[in-house]
C-alpha cells in the first residue's frame, strides 16, 4: 500500500497557478512520485507551482531534494515553486536545513497563490 500520493490536476487563479496536493509520507521511496508530478507540470508548460503540504505527515531528505531540484527550473521559466500549509512538525525539517531562505513559504495555499 502506498503511503504517499500527489494530485496535481487543479489550476486556480489567472494567470493560472498549478496546485500539487501532497498527502502522506514523502521519503526516499515516494520522492520519485513527487518528482514525476513536478516534471509533468513543467512539461505542460506550468511554471507557477504551489505545493500544498497540508496533508503531509513526514518528509525526509529525498523529498527535500525534489523541491530543491525543481525550484530553479520553475524560476528560470518565469514562475516559482512555492510551498504552502506545512504542518509544524514537517516545517521543522525544512527549517532545520534552511529552506525558508530559498523558498517562498506560506501558511496557507490561498496566500501562496495570491503571492504570484
Amino acid at each position, binding site marked *: 500500500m502506498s*503511503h504517499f500520493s500527489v494530485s496535481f490536476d487543479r489550476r486556480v487563479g489567472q494567470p493560472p497557478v498549478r496546485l500539487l496536493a501532497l498527502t502522506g*509520507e514523502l*521519503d*526516499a*521511496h515516494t520522492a520519485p512520485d513527487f518528482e514525476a508530478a513536478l516534471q509533468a507540470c513543467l512539461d505542460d508548460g506550468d511554471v507557477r507551482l504551489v505545493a500544498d503540504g497540508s496533508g503531509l505527515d*513526514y518528509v*525526509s*531528505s*529525498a523529498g*527535500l*531534494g*525534489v523541491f*530543491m*531540484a525543481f*525550484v*530553479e527550473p520553475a524560476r528560470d521559466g518565469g514562475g516559482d515553486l512555492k510551498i504552502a500549509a506545512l504542518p509544524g*512538525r514537517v516545517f*521543522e*525539517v525544512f527549517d*532545520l*536545513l*534552511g*529552506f525558508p*531562505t*530559498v523558498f517562498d513559504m506560506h501558511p496557507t495555499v490561498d496566500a501562496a497563490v495570491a503571492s504570484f
Partner: protein
Amino acid sequence: MAPPQALHVRADTDELVRVRRRVGRWAQGAGLSEAAARRLVLAVDETVANAIEHSLEPGARIVIGAEARPGRLTVAVRYRGPRFDPTTAPTPTRADTLRQRAAGGYGLHLIRSLADAAAYRWDGGTNEVRLTVEG
C-alpha cells in the same frame, strides 16, 4: 536496561516505512517525548536510506537494533558493504548546499543535526552506525 530489540529489512526503499514505524514504537516504549521520537525516526530513516542507495546491492539485508535506557534510546544500523561513515563523511556546508541548490547532501546534515550522539564503527566488512536521542 531493556533487552535488545532488532528488525531485519531488505535493502529496498519500500522498507523505510516499516523501519520508521518500528523505531517509533521503540521510542514510545522507551518513554521518549514525541519531538525526540521524531528526531530519532528521521535520523534512522536517513541512515538506512543512505545505506540502501549508496552502499548496498538490492536484496542485501540491514539489521536495525535498539537499546533503551530511561529517557534515552540508541538505535544501531548494521549492514555489510563498502566502508562509509556518515558521521564524518565530507559534505558541503549547509549554506553551500543551499546556495548551489543541490538536490542531495541533506541526509548527512540531518543525521548529524538530529541525533544527540552519532557513532560509527567498521567491523570486519560491516558498517555500524549508532544514533542516540535523549529527551
